[in-house]
């Protein structure tokens, strides 16, 4: 990678990309590959589709780098693009009888020790995340993987901040219910 921009200067990289610099694009790709791919994977639960979304987003970056206006973090801009592409794929799945999007609302319950232990099991947490409705999976990923604030998430998802908080709450309760099922199963 032969670019003069340091990895902590994504906006500078975008300027170079807009001028046609492939080395800058390579640096940018490796810098943000994880952010875009993980988001897409969390949304789509399918590595084929996630790789496609990553490729499509990065191709858009190559073509549209000059359009980045700096009004949000670069990672938020990228996730916004990935979101549109992931939603298109989710809609296509639904048209073909795929994933339903229930929006169960669970009552909050005290957190038991067993549940605290289950939350440390990354594989179980991932399994339960994969079972969440996509809209809940998305806010959980943005809140706990990307560590985004609720206002930034609300801007990205184009909904009120209160809706983001509510979705995170419901997603958390659904996750608890799922993890509790694991803890209830005999070893």
């Amino acid at each position, binding site marked *: 990678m032969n670019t003069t921009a340091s990895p902590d200067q994504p906006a500078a990289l975008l300027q170079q*990309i*807009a*001028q*046609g610099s*492939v080395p800058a*694009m*390579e640096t940018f*790709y490796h810098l943000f*590959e*994880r952010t875009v*791919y*993980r988001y897409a*994977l969390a949304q789509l*639960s*399918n*590595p*084929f589709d*996630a*790789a*496609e979304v*990553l*490729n499509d987003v*990065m191709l858009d970056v*190559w*073509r*549209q*780098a*000059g359009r980045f206006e700096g009004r949000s973090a670069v990672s938020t801009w990228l996730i916004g693009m990935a979101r549109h592409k992931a939603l298109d794929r989710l809609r296509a799945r639904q048209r073909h009888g795929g994933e339903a999007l229930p929006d169960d609302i669970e009552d*909050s319950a*005290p*957190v038991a020790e067993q*549940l*605290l232990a289950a*939350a*440390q*099991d*990354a*594989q179980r*947490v*991932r*399994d339960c*995340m*994969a079972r969440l409705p996509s809209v809940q999976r998305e806010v*959980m*990923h943005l*809140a*706990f*993987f990307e*560590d*985004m*604030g*609720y206002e*930034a998430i609300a801007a990205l998802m184009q909904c009120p901040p209160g809706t983001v*908080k*509510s979705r*995170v*709450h419901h997603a*958390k309760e659904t*996750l*608890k219910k799922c993890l509790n099922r694991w803890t209830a199963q005999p070893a």
Partner: protein
Amino acid sequence: MSESMDRAARMTQELPWLVNGSLPESGLDAQALRQALADDPALRSERVFLERLRTSLQQDEGALPGELGWRRLQQKLDPNSSESAATNTWGRPAANSRWWRPLAIAASVLVAVQTVWLLNPTSEDGSYVPMSAPPGASVPAAPAEATVLQVQPSPQATLLEWQAVLQEIGAQVVSGPSASGVYRIAVPQAQAEQAQRTLEQAQGLINHVAAE
């Protein structure tokens, strides 16, 4: 709902943003939340739960497309299509630029094989459930119960088309692609003949199929 219950519910909704560090420490919400945490053991347990959840979610989930993904993209980076080089080339890549697809398939299959163990729930008996099988489908747990087919996808096949074929026949990629673009896929023994017929009839998507 009583005032104290209202307050507890509000504090619970604010907790995720304290845990992920996005709640401004100087804000009123953060101060009220810290006071509530000091007063309420249930809220403290909730915080521990969220912290552990966050730690689990941030753990590595397996391979990224990495260098293969970059090489795939690189083939499409026509300098003439960058914004500064030409303002009139915003359209899709040329229709005949499909030669990258075998590489794309290779990259995605590699990622899929590495990731599938982590993404898919295990079945009740602990056997492996591949991504390409429909939910609830029976899949051989050991190679002895499976038939292995050699398949060479057409360079014109898209990732989605290749994936759809695999899903249709409930196949699991065993290895590949070879230098000539051949994959070895496992299908349940009882469905092997039907799977082979399906692949042979997938005109335009599969160049070659044969049982081992």
